[in-house]
């Protein structure tokens, strides 16, 4: 397998243990540049921008997930931090737009919305009630750093032991929801319900006495709860060929659970609508959407307990899709809607199997000798289709494209958390591809600008038409010259190329 060494890197000091999902790349301050956000088990969350640490949020508890996204549906990114003991924090970079938007005063609208009503589990309701307890750390706005003012705009009690987070439109309503996977095999989804009068609050105004747990801006309302049969590996959002979103929940043994929670499904219709318009209604046992388990054919042969990662919605360039369609169409005669194939998704198991799956058919699988724990996607080569980037505990990283070509990179250190994505090293330059490793030595190593234009290596093939110009003589047509060049055997052509390159002065 081809391997590369990487040179361009930035090292950050970041003490403490980092759990796998407490690491993300995203644009918190909405300036178009991506930052790196890492949280540790001591409750510190650091934001790195460019070559330096920009900001640290401390005195939280064990940070289990961090994610950046427009979870408030206000067309700006905020930082969501979930701690293992069940607190959800939202941090926002103060931006000036908010200050200009001033409107009428506050009323008691806050109290009308309560997440408890939507929760289908009794225990969840109890926990949610505790949001009213006053919080100890309230004033989180940033003082000394002039570059970024991060303010805790919201703080809410949620069920504890969240391990995965997903921000995305899971039910196809155009709004971004928050989906959490918990260590007790439960998946929960939440929606942000904003307070209609929130604009009266200027969050960037440091003079304002502002308690983030007051839920003045709004709050998360629980939408759904699903219980899985087994431990959750990872959660991903996937869209089928017609654009319907589904949640894929990785289950041990290379299997996964698929949840379709579309609002147009009759079963879940009422619940969805209610939560948006009149959130006080309780829908009880109605389970919106459909749930099915997928075993992916070969999984019976494998260890049923091996933990699994899944990653959906791999972007593929048109050519790539076409190619895989044709090559596998023979196997797929039953569901032969060749023009309406879904996007592929990737499944990786800890025993080192990496699979690319399309419409529940395994396109290919490879096995590596390393314990793969992190599965990410990144268009490393910049050819328009996503490559799969996986990392193992010992630092072995594999970059695979959708045609099964692979490149390896080895970080000579064990890794406790890994992600890949885009990062802005210099504020004025475009974001570059990067691989981020959190090692066990209190360091974060960020390799940027991965120098891979293509994953395959070939011999140099000269342009034969150009080469044939050498043989155009009197009484010989260009076509004949081309014919001559085509008939040159490999060794002679190689010698000719060598001679032209190294022995001819241009």
């Amino acid at each position, binding site marked *: 397998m081809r391997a590369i*060494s990487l040179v361009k890197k930035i090292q950050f000091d970041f003490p403490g243990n980092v759990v796998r999902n407490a690491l993300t790349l995203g644009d918190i301050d909405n300036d178009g540049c991506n930052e790196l956000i890492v949280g540790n088990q001591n409750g510190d969350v650091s934001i790195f921008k460019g070559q330096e640490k920009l900001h640290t949020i401390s005195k939280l508890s064990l940070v289990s997930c961090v994610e950046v996204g427009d979870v408030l549906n206000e067309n700006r990114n905020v930082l969501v931090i979930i701690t293992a003991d069940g607190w959800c924090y939202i941090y926002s970079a103060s931006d000036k737009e908010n200050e200009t938007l001033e409107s009428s005063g506050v009323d008691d609208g806050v109290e009308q919305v309560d997440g408890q009503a939507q929760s289908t589990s009794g225990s969840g309701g109890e926990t949610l009630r505790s949001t009213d307890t006053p919080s100890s750390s309230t004033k989180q706005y940033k003082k000394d750093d002039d570059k970024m003012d991060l303010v805790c705009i919201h703080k809410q009690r949620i069920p504890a032991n969240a391990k995965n987070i997903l921000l995305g439109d899971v039910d196809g309503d155009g709004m971004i929801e928050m989906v959490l996977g918990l260590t007790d095999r439960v998946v929960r989804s939440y929606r942000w319900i904003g307070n209609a009068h929130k604009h009266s609050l200027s969050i960037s105004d440091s003079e304002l006495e502002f308690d983030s747990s007051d839920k003045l801006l709004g709050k998360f309302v629980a939408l759904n709860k699903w219980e899985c049969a087994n431990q959750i590996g990872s959660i991903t959002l996937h869209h089928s060929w017609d654009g319907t979103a589904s949640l894929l929940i990785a289950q041990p043994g290379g299997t996964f659970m698929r949840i379709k929670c579309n609002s147009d499904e009759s079963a879940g219709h009422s619940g969805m609508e209610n939560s948006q318009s009149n959130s006080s209604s309780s829908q009880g046992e109605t389970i919106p959407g459909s749930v099915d388990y997928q075993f992916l054919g070969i999984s019976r042969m494998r260890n049923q307990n091996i933990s699994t990662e899944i990653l959906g919605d791999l972007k593929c360039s048109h050519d790539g899709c076409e190619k895989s369609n044709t090559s596998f169409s023979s196997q797929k005669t039953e569901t032969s809607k060749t023009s309406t194939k879904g996007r592929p998704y990737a499944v990786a198991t800890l025993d080192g199997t990496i699979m690319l799956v399309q419409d529940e058919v395994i396109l290919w699988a490879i096995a590596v000798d390393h314990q793969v724990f992190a599965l990410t996607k990144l268009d490393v080569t910049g050819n328009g289709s996503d490559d799969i980037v996986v990392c193992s505990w010992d630092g072995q990283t594999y970059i695979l494209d959708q045609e099964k070509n692979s490149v390896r990179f080895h970080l000579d250190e064990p890794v406790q958390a890994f992600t890949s994505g885009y990062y802005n090293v210099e504020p004025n330059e475009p974001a570059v591809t990067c691989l981020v490793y959190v090692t066990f030595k209190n360091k974060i190593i960020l390799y940027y600008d991965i120098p891979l234009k293509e994953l395959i290596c070939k011999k140099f093939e000269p342009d034969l038409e150009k080469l044939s110009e050498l043989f155009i003589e009197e009484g010989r047509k260009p076509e004949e010259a081309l014919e001559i060049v085509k008939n040159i055997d490999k060794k002679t052509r*190689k010698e000719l190329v060598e001679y032209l*390159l190294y022995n001819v002065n241009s």
Partner: protein
Amino acid sequence: MEQFKDAHYFYIPSQGNIYTMTDLKLANGTTKLLVASLKREIFCFEYQESSTGLLVPTTKEVSFTYIPNGAEIISLDAFNKSATKNEFVIGITIIKNSNDSDTLETYLNIYSEWEENEDFNIENIAQNCLNVELNFIPYKLLHTYLVTWQGDSIRSKEVVFILSGSDLQVHVYREHSSDHVYKEIENKDYFPEFIKTPSPVVWIDVYYNSDYTERLTSFACECGYMKLLRIDTRTNKIIYNFSTRFGNYISRVHIFPEPDVPSNFLLETRGLTKCLGNADEASDTKNTNKKLNLIVINTILPAVIFHDVIEYGLTNYATLPRHDTTSILSCCELADIDFDGEKEVLIGTSAEEIMLLKRDKERGWCLEELKKMAAPILGIKYIDISGDGVKELVVLSMKGVHVLQHDFTCLQEVLDSKIQSLTLPNIEELKL
């Protein structure tokens, strides 16, 4: 060096040194790379072409016999005895830590195939070992021709191993084919230039002129002492003898011709012969215009290049710039990596960089570019390991071997301009 892209990297478990990378040029035109690491592992790297035309890098650990546990490899060298087939001889010098006492045993192990062969099988070679016990610590191992004359004709031309050592001497090992052993020969009979030096010799370079009548030898020592000698091989007399002292460890000396004579190319295919280049001029330029230059890589001081050493000896020199004063220059390669017909100097440093120096008509040698690598650099080679006619930059670093391939779009552009220059109607303007 933007035009280079990372083609491959392989990791070596223990670090090598400036002597532990060599290439094997097979009779069929392909090249393999042999890399040794300190703790006995020797890797053979090659590219194989898959059925779909992809280059598949293959790294194979070769277990050479007679390298005991705990031994450490110092230097490595290989050559092909046969001109038409594969008959490789691989020399490996090792230090063996003896268990009972503090004494070190050192050996020169010479591996060879029984007979010349169409197929190259490194496993076979690795099993067939001749041992030469040494009573010094080995340093640089290289091979060169030993030419003996009878009147005006060459009586014999054989390849010998040359090994420098901690006893401040340079030793020459010659094969006695009848006994099938390698024996040290007296230097003064054949190599009068190798005399006792003030400190161990780090690097030796030997250059023969085209008809083997003369030999240019240069070697440099740990203390900075450097010698350049010109020897008449027919009489074994030294024509000239220059020496100088740089006052720091010298890591490399390298004699290189300039310009490399553009040879003409004869293409024969299916009854068609086509000669590219100018056949008449090529033979003339060979002897007249070719100059020999000598580059000396100092580890701490700037590198020095001596131009036209046949004519000027060590007087016509230029100092190559270096951009920092803290790194150690460990190796160099002379290669025309931008295809302009003039060789550039590539110097590898301990600061994980490759310096690209280019000769400018007016300003002299200038630092053109710095390429960052992932580890301190021990060796650079510019060889065609992919087998497509285009050479790759192979870099040995402390962590492994990096293969850098030319970018294809750049190559095609260069090729286009070369073709254009050849197809220009006026032959006179080509100045081949």
